[in-house]
């Protein structure tokens, strides 16, 4: 085997391995994500969930199933505020979104603690962040599951999220 050929094979192997990281599914015998207590700022799970295509696509499914879509539409909002812009009332980091999903907010966001598992809240947060193209480009999906004609996340322009990091303490906010 000639050396350029060998080199390209090694390169291919690397590319494939990189792909594995994107698609990694922490399904079995990885108790970390389930049993750990939620850390309000700097939770180590945040990047695991955010930069994983599988978790994000599970989040997309849950976004429909948990009726998030009824209020927030596909990011443009309706009964609830838009999620695809850069304005976040209660902080737009993964931890903030998980907190919001689980505990609700006083102006209408219902709490989902006890209705969703924490893992599902993380998956949802990952998808919510993808609506404004916050996660890594190679993790974003190039096609949405929904039937409307929203722009694929990979084509969205990324705007840094406002008030990031949020006010400490995770109080109920205004």
């Amino acid at each position: 085997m000639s050396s350029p050929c060998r080199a390209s094979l090694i390169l291919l192997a690397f590319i494939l391995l990189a792909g594995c990281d994107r698609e990694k599914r922490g399904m079995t015998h990885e108790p970390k994500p389930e049993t750990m207590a939620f850390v309000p700022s700097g939770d180590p799970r945040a990047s695991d969930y955010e930069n994983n295509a599988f978790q994000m696509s599970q989040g997309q499914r849950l976004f429909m199933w948990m009726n998030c879509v009824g209020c927030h539409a596909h990011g443009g909002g309706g009964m609830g505020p838009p999620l695809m812009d850069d304005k976040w009332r209660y902080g737009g980091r993964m931890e903030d979104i998980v907190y919001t999903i689980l505990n609700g907010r006083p102006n209408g966001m219902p709490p989902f603690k006890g209705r969703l598992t924490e893992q599902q809240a993380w998956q949802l947060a990952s998808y919510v962040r993808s609506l404004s193209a916050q996660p890594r480009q190679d993790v974003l999906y190039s096609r949405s599951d929904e039937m409307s004609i929203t722009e694929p996340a990979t084509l969205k322009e990324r705007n840094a999220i406002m008030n990031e990091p949020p006010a400490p303490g995770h109080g109920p906010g205004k």
Partner: protein
Amino acid sequence: MRSRPSVRSRATFLAAAACILLPLPASQIHAAANGARPAPAATAPEDGQWTMPSKDYASTRYSGLDQINRQNVARLKLTLSWDTGSRKGQEAPPLVVGSTMYLTMPFPNNIIAIDLAAKPRPAVKWVFRPNPRPMSQGVACCDVVNRGAVYANGRLFFNTLDGQVIALDAASGKAVWRTQVGNIMKGETITMSPLVAEGKVIVGDSGGEFGVRGWLMALDAASGKVAWKAFHTGPDKDVLIGPDFHPYYAADRGKDLGVHSWPADAWKIGGGTAWGWVSYDPQLKMIFYGTGNPGPWNPEQRPGDNKWTTGVFARDIATGRARWFYQSTPHDLYDHDDINEQILLDMPVRGQMRQVLVRPARNGYLYVIDRKSGQVYSADPYGYINSASGVDLRTGRLIPVPSKAPQEGRVVRNIGPTASGAKDWNPGAFSPRTGLIYLPHENLCMDEGVMEANYISGTPYLGADAKMYAGPGGNRGFLTAWDPVRRKAAWKIREDLPLWSPALATGGDVVFYGTMDGWFKAIDALTGKLLWRAKLDSGIIGQPITYRGPDGRQYVALVSGVGGWAGAIVSGPLDPGDPSAALGFVNAVRDLPKRTQAGGRLYVFALPR
């Protein structure tokens, strides 16, 4: 953007306008009328006040005041403008009783009393703050609107978003009683304006997008105690259906249809709310009102006729017992809530005078229904419809077009009318002088895809993605002057934006309405010619009224404040980057944020002294 009366040809229009502009004696106008008049028992002699949003029990929205008329309306001037501080959709009218004006605000539902006789200028008399629970904002489907308070016997009755009915002493602004009737944890809010008659306060719930079980109830106006409550799904005893229930059509007869026309248990979360308008005929002692959409929007999850949703009920006001029911949209496919106004008229039908109610339904048909029997005399399209091919008057049934029926997993394109209907909640006005009904409505179509909706209590129960856009012709709204006797439009005004504000007709033969980009317009009731207009700070979805002020002059008033389902893109604000936002309405009004802004000012106009 400019409104253009679209009479067949411009030449005939000009000719008509030219001869109409000549002053006509009043008697001649009466002779030209088509014989339709409001139900006499449901109207009162003109007293220059405005005590309920619909003006009278017949829901005419007509005031006999004629100081402002076709000839002088062009000189109308602003006499008062005051910022209410609200920035949400303002669908409620000001009320004027004696020399006091009462404003009803969207969430947080404050009531503001303004002393119109105060010197040197009108001043706030009192403000009542009900402080509804903020959580209720999350279960209000289409902005946090309120459609107005009602004045009766020294009291103001109104509803709060979080499901309370409150009676205030109109003089002092102190609560007399407050009764919690809705449960926001299930998604029950109240946005409607109550109807007060015979010592009862009639109230219904909102929340058809949340899988609530719709109801209408009567509270005792004196004490606030619930007198009766009628559900709109479920067994007959809950719906208050008994031996005196005599629907005209066979499809509405049978035992417990509210159970048997649903999959098991689906009726418990089946919607059928009553958030619209109630009319009352004091002669028959019957109320008439429509029921909302069945839930979820996805029709495949609820095979059957889904009784008693999307239809009109006639009930005895004292007991709540149902007298008849007509389902205009059995097995609703498109969220066609049937909650629009019913205008009670006595008019000739095929040569015979009949007591009827006229209702421009959301499905695009204008129904003329006998008040006593529930028989449908006619159902004519007043807007663009391609999702139904007609109404079978023998069976009373709407005939749907199968190719436009939503199906799980696929998108059906170009459905007309949209989920918001050919006309939504915003009622038309009837002028007994012209015999015409002035209908502000929409001209939109939509693409819709449905999927299985999951029921989680207190969250939306929809299962649909929609995207709305302008209908045929490219204009998104119409003001149609409908002749109910001749069963056709006398004329139409094309409006660029959907019309979300109700109309007001006056004895001066002027019709007032507003547009979502903030133009308040006065048109000629006979021809539709634009006579006057003023640009307000924010878009108009509110109800214009007219009254005689303490100084004896005629005033026209309304509160601006764009919002509601149609204007949520501005009041939200929502992101136009997602066409499905606000259940698809955002796509139809993407240009609105550039043309108006959120607001909420009271405007009062009058002729210069």
